[in-house]
């Protein structure tokens, strides 16, 4: 897969404050989630990508070109900023249409595209009302609409789900998935980790201005060898199973549920997931422990996030 973004020793400083520090990476196409705690540098990276600011050091290329002041590149990029800023006295439709006109579309085509984009974001009913009368969620939809109206090849969204109710978030997730499937490269940042996970397996994790991890989530998890994998089991003969497992060399620790209600729960830590599951299969087949539940407790993005940030 060709790289959409390439950066080499990319750094951005705000006076004494480090926004990004020596970021060297290539980001693939497709749908990629950018995650990190507050102040990690996500917005800084996105602003560098869309050419809003210049790097303090290093360089960055988007779709093979440097973004700052690159007018032609802006025909292929759509950007949805995080800040809640719109022309308050214009309607949502007027804003999207104006920005399409500035994008080089004819008046007629601008009208059509604006209507289509707003329909995709279910804003048709309110599109002629002034933005000042919109709720936070509606304003967010307008911001997303203006970023997709010109069918960009690469869509960059900074916290696209913020301000949306659960229904709205689901609609946006579906929209981004559809765009990704349609061939648009999508890079979005979010705090809502389970939604990132829901939408894409490809993540980029940054913290304190540095790249901590990138790639498919399971692969990133597998790389975290310093953190044994946790597996949670439910079994009717939990203690007998525990005794059997404790002798296996793949198993680091076994913990039985602390309370009476949790007596049938086991929490197992293992350094080698594959061999562990093979051993578990063999044990389960050989003796009836009555396994009722099996869950990989820390393969989630949140767990990976916690391990890497801590």
């Amino acid at each position, binding site marked *: 897969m060709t790289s959409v973004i390439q950066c080499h020793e990319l750094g951005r400083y705000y006076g004494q404050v480090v926004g990004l520090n020596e970021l060297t990476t290539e980001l693939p196409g497709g749908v990629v989630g950018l995650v990190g705690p507050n102040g990690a540098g996500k917005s800084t990276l996105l602003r560098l990508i869309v*050419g*809003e600011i210049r790097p303090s050091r290093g360089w960055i290329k988007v779709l093979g070109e440097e973004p700052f002041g690159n007018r*032609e590149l802006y025909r292929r990029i759509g950007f949805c900023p995080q800040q809640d800023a719109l022309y308050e*006295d214009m309607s949502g439709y007027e804003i999207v249409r*104006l920005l399409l006109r500035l994008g080089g579309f004819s008046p007629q085509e601008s009208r059509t595209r604006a209507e289509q984009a707003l329909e995709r974001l279910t804003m048709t009913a309110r599109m002629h009302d002034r933005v000042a009368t919109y709720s936070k969620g509606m304003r967010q939809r307008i911001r997303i609409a203006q970023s997709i109206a010109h069918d960009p090849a690469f869509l960059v969204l900074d916290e696209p789900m913020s301000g949306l109710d659960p229904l709205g978030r689901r609609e946006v997730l579906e929209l981004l998935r559809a765009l990704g499937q349609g061939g648009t490269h999508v890079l979005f940042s979010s705090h809502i980790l389970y939604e990132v996970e829901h939408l894409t397996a490809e993540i980029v994790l940054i913290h304190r201005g540095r790249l901590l991890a990138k790639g498919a989530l399971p692969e990133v998890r597998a790389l975290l060898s310093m953190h044994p994998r946790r597996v949670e089991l439910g079994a009717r003969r939990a203690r007998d199973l525990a005794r059997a497992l404790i002798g296996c060399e793949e198993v680091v620790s076994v913990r039985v549920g602390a309370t009476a209600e949790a007596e049938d729960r086991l929490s197992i830590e293992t350094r080698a997931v594959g061999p562990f599951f093979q051993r578990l299969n063999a044990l389960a087949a050989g003796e009836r422990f009555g396994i009722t539940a099996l869950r990989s407790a820390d393969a989630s993005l949140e767990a990976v996030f916690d391990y890497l940030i801590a």
Partner: protein
Amino acid sequence: MKDLTRAAWILFQAHLWRIFRTRRAWIAIALAGMPVALAAVVRVVSHFEGPPPLEVLITFTWFFLVQTIVPLVALVMASAVIAEEIEDRTITYLFTRPIPRPAILLGRWLAVALPIALVLCAAAELVVRLLEKPGDAGRELAWMPEGLHGSILLTVLMGGVVYSALFAAAGALFKRPMLIGLGYTFVYEGFLGNLPGANQKATVVYYLRSYLFSEHRSLMGDVEEAIFSVPLAEPSSAVRSLALILLGALVLGAWRFTKREYVLSA
């Protein structure tokens, strides 16, 4: 160039009608209305009969309208050309469109320059008309020296447009254009423009004064004659200089706007 004019035209159209929905526009109209209101009051309650003395006209049009109101109106409207986009953080949308950045400055400046010109010319015309009493023989402004009426209107028009370009450029060059504009108007021009000497030529007000008074020197009065000891420029030369100042301001503003990056608060 084609992209520049096209984008500037689109922005001009989009923002022209927005202007009159903003508080700034109403403040500017109120400011421009002040000499009109005063002219009405003075004419109703004053003690002079018939057409007013020309000194009164000059006091209203030159000292009040051109030297005070015109720069203030231009400042209120034009300092926001870029500053408002940055403060409202809407500039991100414009920067991520395939348009030359100077088009943003040019389009938005045109969208304020036209209303400024209209409002100020209307104010000047009303002031002149109001200063004559109804029923005067001078109803067709025959009491004014030939050409003065046109000169007043053109001076006001040129002043509004040039000052608006200067303050629009200030918005692109500086972080606090309102402050810079106030300093320029009341300190730089107020001080330098009224000091005897060639330093007056470094001000806009010198060229506006030249245009208005070159052919009406008798209106200047003895005191002003003493202060303004620098020979006035010819009207055509004054217009050229003003045009140069306007172009220079816009070009400088556009250049800086293209190079500068704007770090917006979250």
